[in-house]
C-alpha cells in the first residue's frame, strides 16, 4: 500500500500544474485536477505500477450553489486499488455553463451507470459517454432533482389522468400537496 504522501507526490510529479489542490481529511486524500486533464489522470492512476487504481468505487457530483463558490459543481471520483487496497478521491470542477466534463467510461467501464446518474440528477453532460440518458427519473422528467435549486417537494405535481395524456403535469400550487419544510423549498 502506497502511503498518501507517495500517491500525492507521484500525481504531482506527473501532472504538475494539472493538480490544482490536494487535501487530507480524516486520513483520506483528495486531489483536485484540472478538468482537461481528467481522462489522462484517470489512465495514469489506473496504469501506474505503484498506484493501480483499477476499481472505480463511486462517481458522483456535488452542487455547491449554496456555499457561494465560483464554480458550481464538483464531479467526484472515488478510486480503489484492488492490488494495493489504497483509496483516493479525485475531484474536477464543472461550471454550471456549459456543464460538461469528459467521460471516464473508456478507462473504467463501471462509470457508465454512475455518469448517467450524475447526468440525471445534476444535468452534467459527460462528453464521450456512449449513451447518456436518464437512469432513475422518467425519461420525460424536467429538471435535475439533486441540484440545490430543485425544490424538495418537486417542481411540479404529477398525477395520473384518464384522458389521452396519461402523465400530465400542472404547475405547482394548483394542486394541494405536502411540503416537508418551507425553508427547504
Amino acid at each position, binding site marked *: 500500500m502506497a502511503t498518501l504522501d507517495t500517491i500525492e507526490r507521484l500525481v504531482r510529479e506527473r501532472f504538475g500544474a494539472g493538480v490544482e489542490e490536494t487535501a487530507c481529511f480524516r486520513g483520506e486524500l483528495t486531489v483536485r485536477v484540472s478538468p482537461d486533464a481528467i481522462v489522462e489522470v484517470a489512465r495514469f492512476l489506473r496504469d501506474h505500477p505503484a498506484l493501480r487504481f483499477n476499481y472505480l*468505487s463511486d462517481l458522483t457530483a456535488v452542487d455547491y450553489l449554496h*456555499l457561494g463558490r465560483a464554480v458550481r459543481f464538483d464531479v467526484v471520483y472515488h478510486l480503489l486499488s484492488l492490488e494495493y487496497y489504497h483509496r483516493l*478521491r479525485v475531484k474536477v470542477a464543472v461550471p454550471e455553463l456549459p456543464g460538461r466534463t469528459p467521460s471516464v*467510461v473508456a478507462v473504467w467501464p*463501471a462509470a*457508465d451507470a454512475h455518469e448517467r446518474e450524475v447526468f440525471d440528477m445534476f444535468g452534467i453532460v459527460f462528453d464521450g459517454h456512449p*449513451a447518456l440518458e*436518464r437512469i432513475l427519473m422518467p425519461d420525460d422528467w424536467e429538471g435535475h*432533482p439533486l441540484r440545490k435549486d430543485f425544490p424538495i417537494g418537486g417542481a411540479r405535481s404529477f398525477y395520473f389522468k384518464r384522458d389521452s395524456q396519461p402523465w400530465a403535469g400542472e404547475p405547482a400550487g394548483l394542486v394541494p400537496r405536502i411540503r416537508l419544510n418551507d425553508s427547504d423549498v
Partner: protein
Amino acid sequence: MAEPASDILDLADGDAAALITTVERTYDNLEILRVNMGPQHPSTHGVLRVVLDLDGERVVRLRPVIGYLHSGKEKIAETKTYHQFIPYTDRIDYLAPMAYNTGYVMTVEKLLGIEVTERCAWLRTILCEMARISSHIVFYATHALELGATSPFMYGFRDRELLYDLFEEIAGARFTVSYMRIGGVRRDATDDWLAGVRKFCDYFPRALDEYEALLTQNEIFLQRTWNIGRISGDEAIALGLSGPSLRASGVAWDIRKSHPYLWYDQIEWNMAVEDAGDCYARYLVRMREMRESLRIIRQCLDRVPKGPVNIDNPKVMLPRREELRHSMEALIHHFLLVSEGFWPPAGEVYHAIEAPKGELGFYLVSDGTPKAYRLKIRAPSFCNLQSLDRMCRGALLADVVAIIGSLDIVMGDVDR
C-alpha cells in the same frame, strides 16, 4: 460479443466500450427480437425491468431499466439532521438494515472523529454478520424458488424468522430496525439476548446442512446454475462488481479484510472465494459466507466485554430516557439534539463497509451545519447490476432468471 479480457490493465478502450450496456444497437440480422421483461415479474426481485435482444432463445444483449423504486433518499438526506436520516437507511437494502445503519453511522462518526465504545463495536460486528446471514438466506430461498424449487423457500424463511425475532428483541422491529445511533446503539443488549444469539449459532449449522442437502448436489440445480452466467475477474473489476459476486470470480477482495473496520481484524475467519465466476460459484460463496459469519459471531459472543455501550458525549449521543426525568442537562441536550441536531466540522468523508451485497459506501459532504450538505450512497446493487449484461450475453432466455437471482440485487438498493 466481447471475449474475456486477459488483463484489466491491458483493457483497451475498444474493449471497454464493448462492456457498456446502455448503447442502443441495431442489428444486420433481422431475426433479432427485442423483448421486454418486467417490471412486474415475480422473479426480478422487485421492480427490475430488463429489455432483452434475443437471437432465437439466446440473449444478444440485455439492458436493465431501473428507477421504479426511486425515492430520492439522497435528496431527503439534505433536509434531515444526521440522526433523522437513520430510518431511511433501513429502507435502502431492506433485507439487511443493520448493515446499512452501521455503514451510515460509521460515516458520520468518521466525520465527527469519534470512536465508539468497545462493547458497541462488538455488538455492531455481531449484528452486521446477522444481517449478512439473513440477507443470504433470502438469496438462497428466492434463488431456489425462481428455479422452481419451493422447499428451500420454506426452509429459508423459517430460519430467517429466528433472526428476525432476535432483531425484534433488541431493536423493537423485525424489518426496519433503525437500531444504530451515532455514537452507539439504541439499547444495550441483554445477556438473555446474547444467549439467544448463541442458541441460534448452535442451531443454524444444522439448517445450513439441510439447505446444502437440498441444492448443492442437486442435479436440476446444477444444470440451471453450473457454467451459467460466467464473468471473469477482470471484467468484474472493470464493471465495478463487488461483494460475494466478485469473490465468485476469483477476486479475493473483502473490505472486512482489506480495510478492517469494527473488530474484523481481531477475529479469525476466512474469505470465501471461488474461481468459476458462474451462478453456481456465486451460490457457493454465499453458502460458505454464512458459515464464516457464524464463526465470526461465535468469537464475538465470547469477547463482548461488559461496560458502557454508548459514548459519553452528550453533544452527539441522545441521553438515556431515565435521565430525562431528573437531569436538567440531559433535558437540554435532548431538546437541542432533537430540534436542531449537532454541528459537525465542515469536511467530507467516504466510508465503505462490506454489506451483504458488496461495497456499501457513504460519501458525506458537510458544510458544518446540522444537516448533510450532500450524501451519496454507493449502493452495491446499483453497481452490481452493470455486470448483468455481460453475464447474460450468450445465455438462454430462461437463464436470465437464474443469473438475476444469483446476482442477488435488491431494488431498494438499486434505486435508492
